[in-house]
């Protein structure tokens, strides 16, 4: 999966969680939590969705890697290389 495809995947999952999420002003290097009003339950949803769609097992200690859009892509790129 390309970096852009991973980015789209994350945004698509977030949109499922919150259809009102506004991506227009989203800064990829800033925490998603602050910009989109996401809470810890929303991040858990992202983890579950990634497992469901791509059989990815993300251990709890790696959750901080999902903080920004950029860090998500960096973390997921090697894991989704064959996807």
């Amino acid at each position: 999966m390309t970096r852009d495809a991973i980015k789209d995947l994350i945004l698509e999952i977030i949109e499922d969680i919150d259809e009102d999420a506004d991506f227009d002003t989203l800064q990829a290097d800033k925490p998603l939590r602050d910009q989109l009003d996401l809470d810890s339950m929303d991040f858990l949803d992202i983890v579950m969705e990634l497992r469901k769609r791509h059989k990815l097992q993300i251990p709890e200690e790696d959750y901080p890697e999902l903080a920004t859009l950029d860090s998500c892509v960096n973390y997921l790129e090697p894991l989704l290389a064959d996807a």
Partner: protein
Amino acid sequence: MPVSFSQAADKYDVIVIGSGLGGLTSANRLVYCGYSVLLLEYHSQLGGLATWFKRKGHIFDVSLHGFPYGMVKTCKKYWNKEIMNSIVQLKDIIFDNPQFHLKTTFDRVDFTDKLNKQFKISQSTIDAFFTRVAGMNFYDDQSMTTRELFEDFFPGRSDVHRLLMEPISYANGSTLDDPAITYGIVFSNFMNKGVFTFEGGTDKLIGMMTTELENNGVTICTNAKVDRIVVDKGVVRGIECQGRMIEAGAVVSNSGITNTIHNLTDQDAFSSEFMEKSNKIRVNNSSCQVYMGVKKEDKIDDIGDLLFTSTTPEFDSTELRDFKTGSKTFSVYYPKTRPGHDRYTIVASMNSNYSDWDNFTEEEYKKEKEALIQRTLVDLNRYFPNAQERMDWIEAATPRTFNRYTLHTRGTSFGTKFEGLDISRSIFKEVNGLFHVGSVGIIMSGWLGAINYGVIVSNDVDAYMRSRD
């Protein structure tokens, strides 16, 4: 409609024991993840403590009272929009005690205003307090108690401590001596954006959840008391119920954590270290309630939705649980609670110790229940005069009642103290495939806590199930 246990198949991917809000939510999440799910409930009605009962034309809600705004998002994400759309705000929350009287919408703006104008606390202290509690996480240091936290910000102000603590004590049984983080997490959720309720009542909510589960393919059986969780060589194999074994890859127990360990699972399944840790779990206190239904021709004028009342001079966590406590909440249900239903009911709730009620003979028990009703009516008369003669149904519940319907250890109505959370979350590492969901650790308590914890545990279950593939 739930089916009889005889109709259950011999094997499921996941079995959920117990249908409290945590169990119901786990079942719904796991069926969403693609597993076949069997939900077993010992009682004839689903919902656990999220329950109701009917008497003489009245419907009494046991634990509806009011929940935080977070329920809106949680119901939308983990249940459906129809359920979310039935959530409405309760706007008149009353405090009445010897230290202060006030009416609040129970949100940050109004609390800030009251603390500033009525209690004369500086804006900067209030802001600093809200910021401090909002930044608390469950994995933070837990050595500070709530009492110390209050003394830090509002030294010697027992009136402010009362305002901040009383509602939380009723919501989850916590005291001033519990870890400050448990207070901070719950307070930030609760006393921030107002108090909400479910229009249509508990019966409607549980009915809608049941329909959703059935539409999603969960097999639900009531009157099905699980006798044993079957463990073999450190791995869960299924459950035994009514002399039948049903196989499963994972079992989620929504029975109390102490029941799960001591009553449902073979003690040999656990290591001595784990047993030693789990023996230290303290269960929270239980409750007493008095349910009162107003005569058909009478009504309740607007006296508020939720009343935190006390005749005790100062807030005291021990007094709150005292057998003859002068502190109680009144949840007032107007016809707006159930559109189309025109009756008025009041549910009085008190925190209570199981040990105070455990040893009575049947005769003493009956007498003490009547005395509890009389004490409650005296207090209620301040807000609803001549209460007794205006009711056509009055009934009391005690810690023994809670124990009978939920089977919870010592009738706990708020799960366990903080240490229960770690045991609950790590039990599947001790016995592969055995999970627990339910009120634990104070923070995973109440309707919102129970539902969210159901989601958290489902994530663990899903990870476990997929790791076996």
